[in-house]
């Protein structure tokens, strides 16, 4: 079994109102060093295979087909 983590983030330049709200809330909590905050998503997946090359190819396909909306989001894949 291979464990993988997929991280999906908004592309640069795409407005992230949730990140902005969190940024404001952190500032209001007194974290005066806070700069920009961008919100994303993390997916932890388990794949029933030992073939890392196949796992990477499958994960890329999963990102392209469902996990990320590539119009507005980037994704990165890391294998444990």
């Amino acid at each position: 079994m291979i464990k993988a983590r997929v991280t999906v983030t908004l592309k640069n330049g795409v407005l992230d109102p949730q990140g902005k709200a969190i940024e404001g809330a952190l500032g209001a909590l007194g974290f005066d060093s806070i700069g920009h905050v961008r919100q994303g998503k993390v997916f932890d997946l388990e794949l029933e295979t030992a073939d890392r090359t196949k796992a990477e190819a499958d994960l890329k396909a999963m990102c392209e087909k469902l996990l990320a909306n590539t119009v507005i989001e980037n994704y990165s894949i890391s294998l444990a």
Partner: protein
Amino acid sequence: MKSAVVQLPGLNRDRDMIAALTQISGKVPVTVWQTETEIPDVDLVVIPGGFSYGDYLRCGAIAARMPVMQAIKAKAEQGVRVLGVCNGFQILVESGLLPGALMRNASLKFVCREVKLEVANGDTSFTRAYAKGQVIRCPVAHHDGNYFADAETLKAIEGNGQVVFRYADGTNPNGSINDIAGVINAKGNVLGMMPHPENLIEAAHGGADGRGLFASALDVIAA
């Protein structure tokens, strides 16, 4: 004109849509479940609003990968009209049938109220009953209606007249780019829009401004 209404778990505006289509065309639309791989011979396919799959992952993302969407794509390629309203619009952009993406409202609030819509293109098969520049009333109810397209896509759809509806008079409820409320595909037979024209079609609704959209799409415009 024959029509079909797609049903998916979590959609909740299907009955309103069926009522509108029945009243305006005089024919009860057929309903099509998400697992169907074929759609009957109809002239218009409608994906109504709601919260398919609980809006999990992204609004419309899971619904867009259901088998029925392949059948809708095939119909769209044949030139059959397809209308997506609210969650239906989100499903159409997620499926790639329409350009762009719909993001969380800039206000981060669910918005449920009436807006003004400017008919930016009155020459489509969905808007012939209106005049270009006409401003109509229409209800909205959504959390993720903030339309976005990258600069290149935006230039293309604006240049081609694919922006069909814009929020008018400062009523943009979601921060969408260029006040875009509805877009059509390049071929002109697939329309997606966030507002709900099916909820303003008779006096009991407080107005009938949405009626023209269905009268156009169903080819029942009064002479």
